[in-house]
């Protein structure tokens, strides 16, 4: 069996002691930033990119992936214990999880989240192993028009998932695309928007933009209204589920895993969508829908499984097409490129050890997470009481030093300040930063493929509709926007996102 041989190769890489160590470091850091306020996985991975530069490619990616799904996990811990989702996809978990904690059932809620996440992560990892190779093979036939349409799809889906105004999300994407165009034009070498500054010829530094918009802007936002966080639950006891609980969570976990695995593949942040979809599915299927929001264990099990499954399968578009599904994946693209690897359909053939190693490490990482989190939950609760005023000077310094260490380029640090203030203003005025970053990463790709496609078609834009794959992708993209604008869905989105405030 091909798959078994490949997975065997993957596990031989993932179980290498050094890789286990970095996987552990990754999930540990991930859990930490998921739990801590004011810093999310995006900013963390951005700051750690320069550190991974010295590592082996496999090791670096294993660690970064660990941070990502570790943060998903840590985010749900805070969602349950203090009703503050550390990560956007945990917002749904907070609804019933926090209620359970208030009723003294924090232990079972955390255990359910852990079991659901572990199960979903394992299944989704298998699915990733199963579906990635054929998809990569299909993607080898993709030409410029298909890539263009795929990127358009990714960008538009991310709008559908942004909070609040769709117009603002669209504008943020376009702004991101434009910022991505700073630097030398790929075809003619003309410097664009550089103010004659040599350092800008290579484009804006991605890490600087990410750290500015997700790190500094977030700090300023938190300084608006400084309050110490209340930790309602001081001690968590009794992590075991009763038999009755067990019976109740089995089906939600299975359904959540399925939903998450499918929706996670969608570019644009499927993990948020899947948590939401799973929650409403459980509510609809339940015999007592009125009890949701008052501490139903099903409302924790389903969404938690869904967002973890989606976190794993969101690696599929990255590993097979080279298209990042959301900002964290965009940073993974940056990590690949730092290692001298172009992410895309060729990775699986040219770097099988890397490809399968990262997949196998996800399973190892999920296991580590369970071990790390359930017995040590008390430690994480303590972490919550670290005051913010100690944290953010560290974030600012790490951001500056880390960004500087990539290219020893002082200009990148000025860029952090610029994007920090622009990002802060935009967030303050009700715009979401994620679409901007996605646009920024995909902008150069979008332009390159559009221009190449137009040369192929001799200037005829019909090429995008005449090629069947491209046309399908575009139809899906339009569909995503239409669905997002539809009144009924709009209302639902509001319902879900209102809970987050």
């Amino acid at each position, binding site marked *: 069996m091909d798959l078994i041989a490949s997975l065997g190769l993957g596990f031989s890489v993932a179980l290498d002691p050094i890789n286990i160590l970095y996987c552990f470091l990754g999930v540990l850091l991930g859990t930490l930033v998921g739990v801590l306020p004011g810093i999310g996985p995006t900013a963390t991975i951005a700051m750690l990119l320069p550190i991974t530069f010295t590592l082996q490619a496999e090791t670096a990616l294993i660690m970064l992936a660990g941070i990502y799904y570790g943060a998903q996990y840590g985010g749900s811990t805070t969602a349950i214990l203090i009703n503050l989702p550390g990560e956007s996809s945990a917002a749904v978990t907070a609804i019933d999880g926090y209620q359970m904690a208030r009723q003294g059932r924090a232990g079972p809620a955390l255990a359910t989240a852990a079991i659901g996440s572990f199960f979903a992560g394992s299944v989704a990892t298998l699915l990733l192993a199963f579906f990635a190779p054929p998809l990569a093979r299909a993607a080898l036939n993709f030409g410029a028009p298909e890539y263009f349409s795929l990127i358009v799809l990714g960008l538009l889906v991310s709008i559908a998932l942004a909070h609040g105004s769709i117009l603002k999300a669209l504008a943020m994407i376009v702004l991101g695309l434009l910022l991505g165009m700073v630097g030398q034009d790929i075809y003619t070498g003309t410097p664009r928007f550089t103010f004659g500054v040599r350092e800008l010829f290579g484009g804006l530094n991605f890490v600087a933009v990410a750290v500015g918009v997700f790190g500094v802007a977030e700090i300023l936002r938190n300084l608006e209204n400084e309050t110490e966080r209340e930790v309602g639950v001081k001690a968590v006891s009794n992590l075991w589920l009763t038999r009755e609980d067990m019976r109740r969570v089995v089906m939600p976990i299975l359904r959540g895993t399925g939903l998450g695995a499918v929706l996670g593949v969608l570019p644009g942040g499927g993990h948020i969508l899947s948590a939401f979809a799973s929650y409403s599915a459980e509510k609809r299927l339940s015999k007592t829908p009125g009890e949701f929001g008052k501490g139903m264990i099903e409302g924790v099990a389903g969404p938690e499984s869904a967002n973890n499954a989606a976190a794993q399968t969101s690696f599929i578009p990255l590993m097979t097409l080279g298209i990042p599904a959301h900002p964290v994946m965009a940073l993974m693209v940056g990590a690949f490129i730092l290692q001298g690897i172009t992410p895309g359909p060729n990775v699986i053939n040219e770097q099988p050890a890397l490809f399968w190693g990262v997949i196998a490490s996800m399973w190892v990482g999920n296991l580590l997470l369970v071990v790390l989190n359930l017995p040590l939950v008390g430690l994480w609760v303590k972490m919550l009481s670290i005051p913010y005023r100690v944290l953010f000077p560290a974030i600012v310094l790490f951001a500056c030093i880390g960004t500087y260490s990539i290219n020893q380029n002082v200009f990148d640090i000025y860029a952090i300040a610029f994007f920090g203030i*622009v990002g802060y203003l935009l967030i303050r005025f009700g715009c979401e930063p994620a679409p901007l970053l996605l646009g920024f990463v995909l902008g150069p790709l979008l332009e390159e493929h559009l221009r190449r496609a137009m040369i192929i078609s001799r200037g005829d834009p019909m090429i995008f509709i005449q090629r069947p794959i491209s046309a399908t992708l575009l139809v899906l993209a339009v569909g995503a926007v239409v669905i997002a604008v539809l009144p009924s869905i709009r209302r639902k989105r509001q319902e879900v996102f209102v809970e987050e405030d």
Partner: protein
Amino acid sequence: MAVNASKNDAAAGAIFVAFGAYFALEALNYDFGTPLRMGPGFMPTVLGGILVALGMAVAITGLGKPDAEAPPRWPLRGMALILGTIIFFAATVRGLGFIPVVLISGFATALSSERNTILSALVITVGLCLLCMLIFVIGLGLIIPWFGPWLRF
């Protein structure tokens, strides 16, 4: 001033219009090209135009819908200290060297929280400086002098 419109939407719209206009106008200096062979100015001009339109649309949708909540106060002290620190860091990291820059930056940032006292800010700063030295210079081999050329006499 009672304006019957969302100030947030108007402000966000204005930022979008400003960026869009800058990119579109600046892109007019570059070769626009033809649809067959698009020049370097093609995408920025088109996207800049779209962004201006979107910015206006954002502002217009805010008309007649004033913001429900009063805006949070501006964290002026934090903004000035944090942004100032980052710029200070960039301007002096080569000249002053690692230790002085990290100490000064850390101290200034810590003070941007109204909850930090001078003493707690000092403690945080020294701790952070040691941590950064360990991680970046010793751990990662970042090539940067402890004390820069400006401090050598």
